[in-house]
């Protein structure tokens, strides 16, 4: 999952009976010196060609085009309209709704890391043992992650609406008298972002738990047992041995979580009915789509999309440079 210069083949878990090379050996391909065969380039082209074509046409080309369109005042029809240089960019960065959407994304990034991380780590550490029904627990924890964002968003709207299921329950329990007195989970400007964080945690914490459990499979049992025989308590073992060894996995999850939070769209759009209350819950991606689809401001929306991409890229590069650097180095050495 890291964009390292050299993927290591030496520490890959293989399932299904294939033999993994012993740790520390270098990837087989690195040792294979190829004699030049006449069909060598032809073969590569045949194998890589289709993927390269599809990927370039539908991922790279649109991104390049986005950069181009963002310099025009284009309404989505007819010709491109006027070339306006960086005008779209300055206007987007001056747009109150976009600024607040950036703040929302930042809030979501921080809260996702701060809440989901410890939560998932604690659960994964506790579950990393011979539990009965472990597979069943794991599946259940993963269910929200598998649900379509649309379905999950619609579901939570039904629950959290002013006259929704949760407030009806509270009225039934006598906490409130009428729906009008009840809590506006999705309409209170001070509350709504915390409600969104709650729903996002529910939806995505399963991924963190599953990743951590997968990572824990790589922590050698005998190491932990040895530590326990030396008299270390459970917590000491976790803190001194397990968590440090889990470091690379945690950092990969953080990377995915940051990028995912910056690019959040579906869930937030469905849960908040496209930014309610009063456009305070927009994310950057929602802003892009809203301005394009309802405002027909394609040039403007695309400029916002390019800014979103630049933020993603910067975050990814900074994270890899300063946080994941050591992981990549060890990966390149082929050592765990």
């Amino acid at each position: 999952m890291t964009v390292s210069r050299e993927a290591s083949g030496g520490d890959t878990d293989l399932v299904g009976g294939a033999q993994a090379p012993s740790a520390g050996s270098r990837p087989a391909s690195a040792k294979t010196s190829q004699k030049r065969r006449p069909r060598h380039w032809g073969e590569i082209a045949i194998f890589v060609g289709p993927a390269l074509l599809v990927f370039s046409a539908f991922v790279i080309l649109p991104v390049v085009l986005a950069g181009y369109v963002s310099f025009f005042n284009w309404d989505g029809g007819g010709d491109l309209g006027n070339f306006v240089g960086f005008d779209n960019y300055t206007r987007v960065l001056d747009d109150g709704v976009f600024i607040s959407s950036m703040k929302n994304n930042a809030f979501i990034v921080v809260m996702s890391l701060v809440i989901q991380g410890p939560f998932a780590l604690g659960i994964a550490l506790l579950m990393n043992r011979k539990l009965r029904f472990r597979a069943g627990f794991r599946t259940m924890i993963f269910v929200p992650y598998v649900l379509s964002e649309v379905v999950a968003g619609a579901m939570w709207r039904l629950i959290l609406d002013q006259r929704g299921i949760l407030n009806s329950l509270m009225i039934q329990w006598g906490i409130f008298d009428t729906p009008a007195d009840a809590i506006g989970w999705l309409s209170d400007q001070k509350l709504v972002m915390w409600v969104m964080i709650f729903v996002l945690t529910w939806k995505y914490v399963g991924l963190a738990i599953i990743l951590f459990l997968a990572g824990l499979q790589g922590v050698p049992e005998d190491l932990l047992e040895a530590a326990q025989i030396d008299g270390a308590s459970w917590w000491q073992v976790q803190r001194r041995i397990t968590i440090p060894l889990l470091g690379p996995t945690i950092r990969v999850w953080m990377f995915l979580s940051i990028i995912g939070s910056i690019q959040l769209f579906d869930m937030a759009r469905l849960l908040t009915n496209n930014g309610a209350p009063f456009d305070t819950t927009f994310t950057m991606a929602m802003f892009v789509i809203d301005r394009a689809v309802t405002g027909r401001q394609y040039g403007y929306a695309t400029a916002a999309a390019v800014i979103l991409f630049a933020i993603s890229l910067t975050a990814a590069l900074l994270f890899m440079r300063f946080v994941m650097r050591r992981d990549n180095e060890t990966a390149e050495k082929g050592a765990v």
Partner: protein
Amino acid sequence: MANMRRSGVIAALAASSALLLAACSSGGDDPAPTNSGTANGSDEPVTITWWHNATADPALTFWQTVADEFEAANPNVTVEVEGIQNEDLQRTRIPVALQSGEAPDLFQQWGGGEMVAQVNDGYLKDISAMVADDVERLGGSVAPWQVDGKTYGLPYQFGPEGIWYRPSLFEAAGIDEVPSTLDELSDAVQKLKDAGIEPIAVGAADGWPAAHWWYNFALQSCPSDVLQAANSTLDFSDECFVTAGEKLQEFIDTEPFNSGYAATSAQQGATSSAGLVANGNAAMELMGQWNVSVMTGLVDDTEALVADLSWFPFPSIEGSQGDPTAMLGGGDGYSCYVDAPDACVDLLKYITSDDVLTRFASEVGGIPAAPAAHSGITDPNLQVQAEYMAESDYLQLWLDTSYGPTVGAAMNDAIIQLFAGNAAPADIPAAMTAAAGQ
């Protein structure tokens, strides 16, 4: 087909961005596969494709019947009708069809700024010469389907916006007569609150229903000639546009709307603003003529609802420069694609004829665009609306439709910010002026 697709991808890859975009934006250059205009009355077989926004009866069957009648009267013409859900049609299907150069001949047209963009892109047929007498017959409601004096479509229905309310709840709160001024409306709101009834439902989560409150305040605050001029000049410098926001701000401060209105949707489900009124949880909602059909879809007992649902026009504001009879409204019409055969225009003329629209009014509902067809209206609420409309000295198309997507979006955003407490009344015309200058 598969080969075409592949070569298309390769071509797309080979083309520089600029070339590709030029190709993308040359929607009109492809020789359209539609029929070239045939002369009227010639026997050459012609097929017309027709997209409308009806996906359910009675409208679905009605339009099909109209198409069948037209085919019977013109043996050489075949009409292929397709009903598509309104938002899909407006946001996706029509823009895509126009861009790809394979557009239907006759399609739904909402008029206003969006149509101006379509005209500028060369997608619409100028039908002025062929429909001159129809424009005369339909009267003032045709204006949103005209650009620079040329006609690019005709409306089949046009209705005003006003306040839908539940008389039984008014009675329960001790309100004797419908509010005709803003002060009376505020009194009614207070009485309803005292009676424990949510006064006004508004689906602010969807944006536009909240924005429509400002539209109506603007309509009641500004002189008609200022509004009339703004439609074409996009000049919002008149002080009345600020006054409208100030008056609205005062009104919002009295907390007249349903609890949680900021996250309430307009039409989706029992907890939407329409659902709250339909289920008797709120007393009023500001909405267009279609609201009765939305509400009846949200309750089981439609007859009881229709018997206890009424309508009054938006109250006037005391001491303002606005025309008290001015009304905001909107309608639906059809346009012909630029390459459509003349038979398309004949079909459009037939659809908007007095006879067809009279039947439309009685069988489908709604307020027909032809004044002569008003005799077909059966619904008492629509009859009331048609009467008010006939008496109105100034009809204004929805402001966001009229001003076009760019100004419309900026205006709606600014209004939402006013509701949120993040913007001042003066910020709304300022945002509109800034958007108009782009």
